[in-house]
């Protein structure tokens, strides 16, 4: 069953919650909705589920108009941020409840519960009450209940937000494996770019009720369609610099000049915005087209294996995402290098005009 949103708009008290959303999700696909808090992720999922009726537009399941058909009449499951289980039922009964509602035989129920519990590694806890479990186990119980009925559509609304970082890492991998073998459409809302990347599938970027970009996750990350997409889908946030291109050179903030490189020389003269990812900046020159910029250190955030170095000059702030440990003093003067072929070039209004180029390195090793 494919799910299609056709020009779906939702207006509440004169405010656009969702503005002309067009999307199609195929059976067996895993789809991430990425956006900030209040960007419309939950609203969009509620419209997909039929918990809300759009102000205009249509929701189609496998080509059939389902707009206005209530959620009970659709084959849909939802998993929320809060761990929602029936507190007075055992884990077994919690998982079994959708099948009991569907009047399945106890034999079928048992088989299915055991199968799904095994998959989600909660078999040892089936006779316990949900509140006797850890957060991760409670959320696995809710997920098992959502998965047991072979829904056409499963909606996950930031399901891992309340869990430990490490547990999230494990559950993401499990989810990917679980859905690899299913025909269900999975939709997963998150605020975190790194979570979207870890989940894979396709990613749809939402901002202020509008769909900004949609496509295979890694591709969307590497080729953001505009400044908003580039900003939302990068962690740490992408560095943006204003500049202009003349006949033979590029100028950043009227102060830093460099010649047009092969990657940039197709661009016509004019004003642009340049985006450079923190991970593409370095402390040593590496490429023939590197641009050297003098900056001052604001602060170095050092994790055990990486450094996030925040720097500034008179015109802009930047962050570098470096491998390894690099200690610097506050206000220390250093030079950083911008590989100019890695610049994402956006028009003045924000639209992408040229994505950063990927020169695959030939050497191997870790």
């Amino acid at each position: 069953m494919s799910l299609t949103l056709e020009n779906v708009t939702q207006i509440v008290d004169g405010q656009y919650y969702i503005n002309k959303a067009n999307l199609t999700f195929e059976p067996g696909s895993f789809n991430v909705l990425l956006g900030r808090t209040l960007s419309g992720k939950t609203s969009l999922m509620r419209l997909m589920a039929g918990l809300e009726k759009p102000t205009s537009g249509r929701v189609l399941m496998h080509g059939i108009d389902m707009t206005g058909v209530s959620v009970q009449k659709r084959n849909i499951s939802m998993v929320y941020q809060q761990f929602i289980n029936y507190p007075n039922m055992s884990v077994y009964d919690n998982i079994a409840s959708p099948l009991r509602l569907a009047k399945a035989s106890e034999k079928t129920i048992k088989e299915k519960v055991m199968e799904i519990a095994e998959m989600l590694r909660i078999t040892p806890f089936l006779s316990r009450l949900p509140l006797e479990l850890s957060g991760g186990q409670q959320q696995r119980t809710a997920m098992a209940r959502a998965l047991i009925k072979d829904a056409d559509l499963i909606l996950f609304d930031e399901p891992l937000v309340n869990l430990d970082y490490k547990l999230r890492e494990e559950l993401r991998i499990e989810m990917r494996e679980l859905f690899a073998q299913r025909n269900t459409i999975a939709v997963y809302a998150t605020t975190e770019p790194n979570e979207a990347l870890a989940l894979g599938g396709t990613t749809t970027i939402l901002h202020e009720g509008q769909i900004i970009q949609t496509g295979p996750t890694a591709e969307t990350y590497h080729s953001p369609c505009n400044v908003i997409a580039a900003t939302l889908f990068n962690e740490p946030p992408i560095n943006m610099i204003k500049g202009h291109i003349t006949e033979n050179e590029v100028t950043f903030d009227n102060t830093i000049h460099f010649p047009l490189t092969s990657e940039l020389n197709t661009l016509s003269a004019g004003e642009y915005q340049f985006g450079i990812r923190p991970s593409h900046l370095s402390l040593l020159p590496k490429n023939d087209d590197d641009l050297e910029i003098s900056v001052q250190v604001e602060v170095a955030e050092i994790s055990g294996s990486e450094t996030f170095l925040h720097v500034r000059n008179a015109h802009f702030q930047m962050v570098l995402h470096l491998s390894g440990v690099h200690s610097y003093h506050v206000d220390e003067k250093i030079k950083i290098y911008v590989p100019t072929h890695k610049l994402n070039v956006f028009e003045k209004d924000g639209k992408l005009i040229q994505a950063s180029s990927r020169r695959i390195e030939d050497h191997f090793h870790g």
Partner: protein
Amino acid sequence: MAEIHLKSLAHSYDTTANPPEYAIRQMDHIWHDGGAFALLGPSGCGKSTLLNIISGLLKPSEGDVLFDGVRVNDIPPQDRNIAQVFQFPVVYDTMSVFDNLAFPLRNMGAGVAKINSKVTEIAAILELTDVLNKKAANLTADEKQKVSMGRGLVRDDVSAILFDEPLTVIDPQLKWKLRRKLKQIHERFKTTMVYVTHDQLEASTFADKIALMYGGQVVQFGTPRELFEQPNHTFVGYFIGSPGMNFLEVKRCKEGVCFGDIAFPLSAAEKKALQHSTSNNLKLGIRPEFVHVWDKPNSQAQQANVEFVEDLGTYKIVSLTLGGVSIKARLQEDQKIPLQSAYISFPEQWLMLYIDEFLVEKENDDE
């Protein structure tokens, strides 16, 4: 500002239980004055219990908490000169930002001039100057959280600022801004700060030293780099790093330890430790960042199967299998990745030996 000393500290919520069940197992720690510390660990590890003991919300069942050498066990939280920032911002909604920030100073009976200068200073640092006259209720979540922090910073007499998962409700892009701010504030004021989180990135970027907790114990207390490069327990290896450390179960053999028919040489200190132990619970650990991946055979490399590759934007994770065991390698964004079959090697420097889950030091100080 103060040094925090946890002296023979332990805590049990139920002291009548037999055998006693400890939420915090006995520990001794000195957290130096002006340091930035993180309590990191999974939920249920005891980190919040420990924070509550430091703040005075909870009285330890055993041992002492000393601030600058003075025992504070019996001193209630409000008299400990501690500022706290919680997961959900605590602001007085009906007051302006200015009044929120001035509140602790007014409580202390500070003069108007002092209040004005202090609030203006802190607001400037936190980039709250433009909203000083706004009602706190009208602020965004990150602004509210900055006000919560600001209330801790206006006081000169604060012994320590305690943060309990302060960035959980903040969107990722703003998290970066706020975290940087916090770090800058620490560099400037050098107030002792203790930060509780389950997020290793938050802990490691904020703290000079991390106490990694598990099962009511501090498993390792060290710099982020030490926790990454020298995890002293397999749990530290697993919990720190994304993905965590790779482990190979190995057996004793002539050369040192062997994984199947692959022999791994050991340092003198490792060999000695192995001789002194009778355990068969032996593991080699290596971080995904340190696994080398090649497309052609070489004398050090072992053939492994490439199972799948995840593109995580700034880097890629390659999942490989070696002798039936899954190994992950972390490669740069633009590095080429072999298809199906790869050759991997483990640089000796980064290969750690664990006996009964504990690290064996590569060099023995006694020798």
